[in-house]
């Protein structure tokens, strides 16, 4: 199921990111689950989430093109399903 990119998102604060040449490793201390971010651009998106008003803005800020958006939406959905990222309540 795809996530709603029009809403605000953030990295779960129980998750640590470790940049790697291929992208990054993400480790969730709560679920003890390891995930792989398979590109540096996806890492940039995830890092941009908390500061951007919507998921879509985070993608664009990280240099994701309109054509790439569906793929990144899919990647973010996977991260949301495993609790790596979560919806941020509007402030």
């Amino acid at each position, binding site marked *: 199921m795809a996530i709603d990119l029009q809403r605000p998102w953030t990295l779960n604060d129980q998750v640590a990111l470790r940049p790697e040449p291929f992208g990054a490793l993400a480790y969730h201390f*709560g679920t*003890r689950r390891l995930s792989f971010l398979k590109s540096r*651009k996806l890492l940039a998106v995830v890092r941009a989430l908390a500061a951007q008003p919507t998921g879509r803005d985070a993608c664009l800020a990280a240099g994701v093109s309109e054509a790439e958006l569906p793929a990144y939406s899919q990647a973010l959905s996977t991260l949301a399903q495993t609790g790596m990222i979560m919806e941020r309540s509007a402030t």
Partner: protein
Amino acid sequence: MSAAAPGRLIDQFETGLDAPICLTWELTYACNLACVHCLSSSGRRDPRELSTEECKAVIDELQAMQVFYVNIGGGEPTVRADFWELVDYATAHQVGVKFSTNGSRITPEIARRLAASDYVDVQISIDGATAEVNDRIRGPGSFDTALRAMRNLADAGFQGFKISVVVTRENVSQLDDFKAIADAFDAQLRITRLRPSGRGADVWQDLHPTAGQQRDLYEWLLAHGEEVLTGDSFFHLAAYGESLPGLNLCGAGRVVCLVDPIGDVYACPFAIHNAFLAGNVRLPGGFTRVWRESELFTELRSPQTGGACMSCQFFDSCRGGCMAAKFFTGLPLDGPDPECVLGHGESALAVRGDEPAPKPSVDHSRRKPPQRACDEDPLSDLRRANP
């Protein structure tokens, strides 16, 4: 996430990472049990064991390298007087801990403390789903001890702790029973492969699953997939046809390694032998330098030759199997795994000849305890036999 992936992840891992994904750290060779298949030949404490301060310095390095968690084992790690201090130090420094224990020190009080932390995970070892099967491997009373620890954890509300089983010829028929035990305690089952490492070399011939059992195990793993953890240790079974979940890759020196109680760094927990010794954390540059610069690890990260296995259609999924299993059964590292499901390992073992296989470089097995206080008396055994 594959849409955003350039190339395969496995190729990235093959050339190694700047820091391990996880790390096995045997804190002590001391153990109150004497399991027949102990991969680290544990029993007696090594007097050169890393001090509390030295252990903390290693944790500082792991934090700087962003190693998310360490798998602490032994020996029985909880027998170290500073064990809880080190666990607390690690978690306070963003290094999560999963520790393996036989359960002897998991009291209700300790269980409550463990349940309260998000950063500590516990793995209780059993090698039989019944006391009869378990205690033959792990010693009298060890099954009850482990079950008591599991009950304490469950009562304390610790969900999802791990129950760790080494699959043997004697327990492979109990996989459903192990799963039932895990489900009853709201725990997760983790099954791993028996390696001929440590004292395991002495029993491997008799305890490793038969060819027929390997097939059953493979079917069982396919049926249970993601519900059961395997440490990705059964990737040699992929040659039956389908890849199993997880990384189908030997991670030795690439994504994992072992730090032993005296600070020696080996390529993997199953390879405690000078041939796989990369360095020591006490030397200048510490663990970081060993991981990033040691000759051995550099070599392990370079393209490996698959030897005779290269022509096998399953080479891409099995990759010649487990390095340690080959080494300690005396097989060449670029040949088939001794448990190759196509039977190439058995043929290789059959033609290998009588040359003894390499022995582990270190052995901390307890010597037989004296039977009586005055054991020097050459007649003490006789007297006991004829009271």
